[in-house]
């Protein structure tokens, strides 16, 4: 049963997948309670998306980063932290789980454990629009990752667009690092939270900081406006900005010359490891499937726990809190009522944000027949609509007929859009192999 490459013996109690705020808090809490913990992350450093940082990060202005790095150091003294390890599947035999990873040089590593904490975070949820595959168009998170992780400013003349409070730190970061941010175009607006997006970040100090940075750099913030097209020959040269009605139908347009666009319409929680293990999902307030957990962060599958965005998008404070709760619960400790109450309050706030920053159906009117939906397989809108006309009634049959979601990214980028075009709620993703691996690694798994 045991593969020769098993790094950790049966002595490991808990494997945590994900080294962001949820994963580090969960791993540290469990380790402090005496559990033998291994944390696995694909990145070169702990941090996940929010706390992504450069090696000598003294100049990074991310609020809370110092505290997170202290937690990371404390974790390093008490648990094994495996960085640069991509988890591609988790298998079960009896009451034991085996987490299969691949190192950067392609070496397989298998870790056996009793409990698994899924703290895999989320990625940007893009919407397709004409020209969105031009180089120079980045996701908002991508622009942020360039800056936080690499010290690279995504461009010189930058437009930020999409919906949600996350656009603010992205714009403030870019402006602060020297980019000319020509505008933040928030497709929603008008609701109480949307009128005060800085409050929506849930932490007054942070919010004031972003607001100040935007004001200092004279970054215009426009609600009910969106980037509906990108233009350029080989790279981005300009975008079309539209004024929108409440359903995101176009009222008027203008062109803005720019070299970079950072765009994001919310987030996709990364739940595939849980889905493949059979964990039940539920629709989050925005309809995205997330892992169903109880008050102790336990999924519906024995030994499998989840914290942070995979249980519903709520930001880094909630993620850390859920990680702590999960760490206590896995260690068999009671969860203090104060933590449970704080969690309920923050979860309700996350849901209120979803209601304040929804995706409205009018975005589909921005598409042209040749607009790519699936960037990997280069599937244009026309082919998706042809599949629907042929009788495809859901995203899965659209995929089989027109191939959106069949490429390298396995539908992570286009899955939401395809579901919307098919007129259904996004379904839990089925990705038995969550990361590209060598056939050799797959064959090794087969011999288990």
């Amino acid at each position, binding site marked *: 049963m045991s593969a020769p490459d098993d790094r950790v013996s049966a002595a490991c109690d808990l494997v945590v997948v994900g080294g962001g705020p949820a994963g580090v808090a969960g791993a540290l809490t469990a380790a402090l309670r005496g559990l033998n913990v291994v944390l696995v992350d694909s990145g070169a450093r702990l941090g996940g998306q929010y706390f992504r940082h450069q090696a000598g990060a003294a100049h990074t202005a991310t609020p809370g980063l110092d505290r997170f790095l202290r937690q990371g150091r404390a974790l390093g003294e008490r648990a094994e932290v495996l960085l640069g390890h991509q988890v591609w599947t988790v298998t079960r035999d009896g009451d034991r789980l085996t987490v299969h990873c691949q190192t950067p040089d392609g070496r397989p590593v298998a870790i056996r454990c009793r409990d698994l904490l899924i703290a895999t975070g989320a990625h*940007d949820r893009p919407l397709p629009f004409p020209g969105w*595959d031009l180089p120079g168009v980045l*996701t908002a998170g*991508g622009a942020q990752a360039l800056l936080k992780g*690499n010290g690279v*400013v995504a461009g010189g003349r930058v437009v930020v667009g999409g919906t949600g409070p996350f656009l603010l730190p992205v714009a403030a970061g870019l402006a602060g690092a020297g980019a000319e941010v020509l505008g933040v175009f928030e497709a929603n607006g008008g609701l109480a939270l949307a009128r005060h997006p800085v409050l929506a970040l849930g932490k007054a100090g942070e919010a004031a900081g972003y607001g100040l940075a935007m004001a200092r750099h004279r970054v215009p913030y426009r609600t009910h406006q969106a980037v509906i097209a990108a233009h350029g020959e080989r790279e981005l040269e300009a975008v079309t900005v539209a004024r929108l009605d409440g359903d995101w139908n176009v009222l008027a347009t203008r062109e803005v010359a720019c070299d970079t666009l950072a765009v994001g319409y919310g987030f996709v929680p990364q739940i595939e490891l849980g889905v493949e293990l059979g964990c039940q999902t539920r629709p989050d307030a925005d309809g995205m499937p997330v892992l169903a957990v109880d008050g102790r962060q336990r999924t519906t599958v024995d030994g499998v726990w989840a914290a942070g965005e995979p249980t519903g998008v709520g930001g880094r404070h909630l993620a850390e809190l859920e990680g702590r709760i999960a760490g206590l619960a896995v260690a068999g400790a009671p969860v203090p009522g104060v933590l449970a109450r704080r969690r309920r309050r923050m979860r309700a706030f996350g849901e209120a944000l979803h209601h304040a920053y929804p995706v409205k159906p009018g975005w589909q009117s921005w598409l042209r027949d040749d607009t790519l939906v699936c960037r990997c397989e*280069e599937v244009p809108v026309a082919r998706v609509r042809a599949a629907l006309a042929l009788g495809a009634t859901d995203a899965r049959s659209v995929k089989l007929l027109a191939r959106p979601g069949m490429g390298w990214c396995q539908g992570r*980028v286009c899955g939401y859009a395809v579901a919307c075009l098919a007129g259904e709620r996004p379904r839990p993703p089925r990705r038995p192999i969550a990361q590209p691996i060598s056939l050799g690694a797959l064959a090794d798994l087969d011999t288990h």
Partner: protein
Amino acid sequence: MTFQITIDGRAVPVEPGQTIGAALHAAGVRAWRTTRFGGRPRGLFCGIGVCFDCLITVNGRPPERACLLEARPGDEVTTS
């Protein structure tokens, strides 16, 4: 200490810890492959290893995600 990598023989400066994709993007190289069907240029998009748009050939190895791959001194990127 800044070091160098090359893309098709041309030198690109790198700060230690930067990914290949970040170094190229910073140097103004925003596309390094074309798509199979439409021949469309591709570079960074998601920036965090999700979209696979930024696949790149480094030192002759099979394509990897430029946004995840940390640059090492002397790395040779080829685009065709």
